[in-house]
């Protein structure tokens, strides 16, 4: 992951947003509403973060690099909720990579679209510190 460059594209990757995943995530973050844990459920917007992780790991099977990353910014536009059971397509582009205060940062834009209709569910702008350690 640490060798990604600006302009690199990740995906597309199919993701089934199963009711299991929706409930599992909602349960872990104590989001107890019927909207996310009932029968006709939709995904919490922040489930996108897990899909980001899956896409990154799919695109970078060798792993994150020599040291732990640190997530800096979550920035998501919710176009519409993802119903449980929907198959979506995940895709991303690396849009920035730069050093600040001696540590390297990477920016990426993720899109989540309906696999059948192509309609957008979410757009997610992510900023990650590639290494928490300044001397790594």
């Amino acid at each position, binding site marked *: 992951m640490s060798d990604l460059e600006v302009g690199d594209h990740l995906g597309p990757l199919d993701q089934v947003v199963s009711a299991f995943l929706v409930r599992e995530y909602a349960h872990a973050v104590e989001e107890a509403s019927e909207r996310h844990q009932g029968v006709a459920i939709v995904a919490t917007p922040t489930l996108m973060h*897990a899909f980001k992780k899956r896409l990154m790991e799919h695109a970078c099977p060798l792993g994150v690099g020599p040291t732990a990353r640190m997530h800096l910014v979550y920035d998501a536009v919710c176009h519409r909720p993802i119903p449980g059971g929907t198959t979506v397509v995940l895709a991303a582009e690396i849009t920035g990579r730069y050093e600040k205060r001696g540590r390297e940062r990477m920016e990426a834009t993720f899109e989540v679209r309906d696999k059948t209709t192509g309609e957008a569910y979410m757009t997610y702008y992510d900023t990650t510190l590639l290494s928490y*350690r300044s001397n790594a």
Partner: protein
Amino acid sequence: MSAWDDWVPGFTRTAATRVMTAERMRWYADALETCSSGVDEPVIAEPNIHTDDEFAQANGLPARVSDGMISTNWISTLLTELFGDGYLVGGSLRTRFVKPIFVDEGIDVVLRVVNRERGEDGFERLVLDVECVKGDGSVATGGAATVTLR
């Protein structure tokens, strides 16, 4: 009289204090691994900076720290509770992880109205400052959200 009459610039809403526990860090770490695995089976996360003090210290941290997405989730949940589709359809949330949150720290989620205006579609929209504030008053997670009043 509307439910949103109070939601004008300067209005602040604070949720009940939550404590960031080791359990909450573990729940999220496992859910993140589960939901990113690509299969519908529970996964237990390997030791990382959010679950293991020694792992965190080996990476330059004093102890395990909360995944910033936990506090972001607390903000997102409050937005969903208050605004429903006004957040989930066309809304946005941006959070920046300013300071680490450690085990047993109390966190207040605070929303503050910055702007309220009517859009071309006839709906009113709010711009909110959002924060997760520690017991000492410092901001651990800060950012902004936009919602529609429906």
